[in-house]
């Protein structure tokens, strides 16, 4: 790791100011992506601005309209254990419980995960399927607009994710096929019945990051069953291919995981 300066922010505006004043500052949340990258000397921020002690962006709230608001600095373990979330969006709680290992889940945060937008990260599938809203210190994004490609988001350089809001839905479920080595998603499929209809979002498999499966959604609108999606797969041309899985294998996994998610969802 290169030398860096650590700052602890106590409010969002505090953090924004610290970031502005820094030479080449970076926001630090759970540090589960950023710190390993720095240890490998692949990132060298001059300053780290720690968001984990900002009370206003931490915690889980069930709002009046039934939606769930998760502060950006909330760790995965808290999402996995939340009774509010388990009651209305069990698929989301399950998803958080599949991320990494207990250490990672107690440090890593939803804000860090969505800001990072690793193509193999789990949360983006839930955000896209559930039509979540990403709140920042400047504005709001729909998940559809937010995730723009591998490790790419619509965030400005100096923009801070403050919360993610999940509208109510039913029949939520997440089926994840973990990469045998890293245990990130090789294909993770989130399904839900939302106000706008059936939703199927896939992470880990696509070349451009998280994506939806409109065919499957249409089929599920008519017939919410595993059989309805059994014959459907994304085109292998758009799938990632690496040491652990060919594009054809990943395309197959999308089908299998979609079936399993639907089967687990009722």
């Amino acid at each position, binding site marked *: 790791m290169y030398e860096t300066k650590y700052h602890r922010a106590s409010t969002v505006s505090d953090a924004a100011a610290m970031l502005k004043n820094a030479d080449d500052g970076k926001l630090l949340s759970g540090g589960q992506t950023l710190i390993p990258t720095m240890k490998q000397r692949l990132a060298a921020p001059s300053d780290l601005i720690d968001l984990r002690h900002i009370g206003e962006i931490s915690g889980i709230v069930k709002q009046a309209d039934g939606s769930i608001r998760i502060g950006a600095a909330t760790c995965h373990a808290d999402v996995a254990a939340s009774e509010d979330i388990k009651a209305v969006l069990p698929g989301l709680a399950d998803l958080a419980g599949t991320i990494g290992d207990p250490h990672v889940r107690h440090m890593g945060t939803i804000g860090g995960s969505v800001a990072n937008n690793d193509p193999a990260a789990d949360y983006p599938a839930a955000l896209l399927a559930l039509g979540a809203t990403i709140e920042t210190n400047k504005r709001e994004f729909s998940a559809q607009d937010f995730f723009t490609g591998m490790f790419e988001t619509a965030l400005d350089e100096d923009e801070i994710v403050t919360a993610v809001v999940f509208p109510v839905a039913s029949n939520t479920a997440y089926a994840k096929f973990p990469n*045998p080595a*890293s245990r990130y998603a090789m294909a993770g499929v989130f399904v839900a019945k939302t106000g706008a209809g059936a939703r199927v979002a896939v992470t880990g498999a696509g070349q451009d990051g998280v994506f939806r499966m409109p065919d499957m959604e249409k089929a599920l609108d008519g017939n919410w069953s595993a059989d309805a999606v059994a014959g459907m797969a994304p085109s292998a041309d758009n799938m990632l291919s690496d040491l652990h899985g060919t594009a054809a*294998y990943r395309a197959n996994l999308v089908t299998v995981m979609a079936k399993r998610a639907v089967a687990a969802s009722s």
Partner: protein
Amino acid sequence: MTAEGIGARVLRKEDKRFITGNGRYTDDMTMQRMGHAAFVRSTHAHARIKSINTDDAMKMPGVDAVLNGHQLVADGIGNIICGWMIHSKDGSPMNMGAYRALESETVRYVGQAIAVVVADTQQQARDAAEAVVVEYEDLPAVVDSLDALKDGAPQLHPEAAGNLIYDWEIGEEAPTDEAFANAAHVTRMDIDNNRLVPNPMEPRSALAHFDPSEEHYTLYTTSQNPHVARLVLSAFYNVAPENKLRVIAPDVGGGFGSKIFIYPEEIACLWATKRVGRPVKWTSDRTEAFLTDAHGRDHHSTAELALDANNKITGFRVKTVANLGAYMSLFSSSVPTYLYATLLSGQYNIPNIYANVKAVYTNTTPVDAYRGAGRPEATYVVERMMETAAKEVGMAPAEFRRINFVREFPHQTPVIMAYDAGDYEASLDAAMKAIDYDGFAQRRTQSEAAGKLRGIGMSCYIEACGIAPSQAVGSLGAGVGLWESAEVRVNAVGTIEVLTGSHSHGQGHETTFAQLVSDRLGLPTESISIVHGDTDKVQMGMGTYGSRSGAVGMSAIAKALDKVEAKAKKIAAHLMEASEGDIEIENGELKVTGTDKKLTFTEVSLAAYTAHNLPEGMEPGLKEGAFYDPTNFTFPAGCYICEVEVDPDTGVVSIENFVAADDFGTIINPMIVEGQVHGGLVQGIGQAMLEHTQYDEDGQLLTASYMDYTMPRADDVPSFTLETTVTECPGNPLGMKGCGEAGAIGSPPAVINAVTDALGIRDMNMPASPNRVWQLIQDNGMKEAAE
């Protein structure tokens, strides 16, 4: 015999310090004014170094020195050696390319050390190492051993034409060919053994210190054999004469073979400490460990088995190409030869065997011994062939093995080894019973009903441990003898220190070795301390690898104990005015048989040191040493059976049950032995299902972190069922065979035999990763069959 003696499940004495974080590892050591080293490493797999510019690095804060290979050579530091001479079949000695601790002309693998920086802090050293500018001229690279042998392949070393290190053979070719000419059936397979990264939990580390007033060096290092390290550093690298070099291997967090060897970094730290005039420490990070710890395995083989009309084996022919990487590491030459092909007879009576092994240079990390070292590769070839041949001739795999088992001992194989004792059918029976082999068909039907594929596979392994009879290995090319030493020091109050040349880095010697002494003298293990890992304390030793510490190391202790007992008996007889032959030792007391006269061991020890009343002419004191040189290898053997279920939708293989029935001879501490077997099995299953070292065609290591290299985790393996059968080893005083490597040796073929059985196919490569298994299912149209 005591409650803590041979056969007792004594809890490990060393665990208190390990579990409470009080272990003392090399990286825990610090010294005043200590500097930190960082290495400049090649980013190219094959390139000529045009220039090394250290100007910027030298100006950086805290930097003491930036040293390179030109200075190393000028200071007379010798090239890295390979300690086992192999001759090709034409009689010529192996072709060894020059291997320098710091390379300044041509780099041959990614990660090879080029220069070393010493600075005040580790970060400063790393920053400066990054600032060293190396200008490369790229050369074409080759990573696969078969490609390296082809005409026109990139050439690594001028000393090794065609990248061929040796072309070696064992056994008789003509009679073996004859057996094939007359065979009723021939089974032929191409069999690969995948390359592995050893991954001990503690990365390598070295701390070197030079005392100019005494002209004396101290080296703390992560070594499995500190005495061999001192010998080699002193005799071949000219660092210092042995009496001026102390090597300490303190607590070491796992080795699996990778810490046997002397690496460039230790040599560089020792050399640098004198040049910069301060202690120098280096600790590998995980990326360096992936790139530079000697890798394991990496064979391509073609094997043929000849059977007669009664399905008895008449001949076995094997051709193997072994990838040794870019340089020859310390024992690399012996692994695919004498540690491999000598085990090709397996547990079977095979009258004719011929094996040819070509060892090859490639632009990859050097390959050397890794848990099992050659024997897993042999077992994999033999047991994949046995399973396949049985199926081809329509016999049950167990029956086919049974009719070919060696049943009479001693048994001379056509490939050097003389098996001394064993009962292969006993372990086969024990394993089949434990896994309920007969119930498999029903379990398969149940799996099929659930849309899953089920398979069962076995592996009857034999290995050679207790390495090794010195004269025998000397005649085969070894540069060292493979005896072990021990010294038993009885203190005046009857407590005991045992000094051993074995080295413990996870094996639990502090417990098992104390159990042996406890067993013999009837003293509690608490009053017995084991001292190892320091060349100033233990005079000489050969270290720990090849499952040798029990059979060889403890035999040396047993011999030293014989002498201690003999002297103690003489003193007791004298004091109690009895005849020496009437003294027996029991429960920490020396008794006169048939009387109530006795002295405690403490009283006798005290008498030895007060020396007020010793037998006429006896020297004071009670301290005895012994060297034990084994007369033969030992031959642990057993039967492993694996049962798997495959999910045809995803290709995921889950091990439903795994039985290991082992014959290790005498067992000192069953709990520790079970731990060794568990660990070995997980490593073997890791190789068979998960671990796979991959390079791209330019020689970049693709699996250089845990993001891509799949280490086995607890949830990848089932609870193992362990059985033991016992035939005592006649070759050593304790009847021990060794248990450290068996799990890793026997398990890979059992897993792959089970997976191929589930898929109904003959051939597949390791690891049985989900993608590979799924692809095989697609290729063989099995998905429909399962549904």
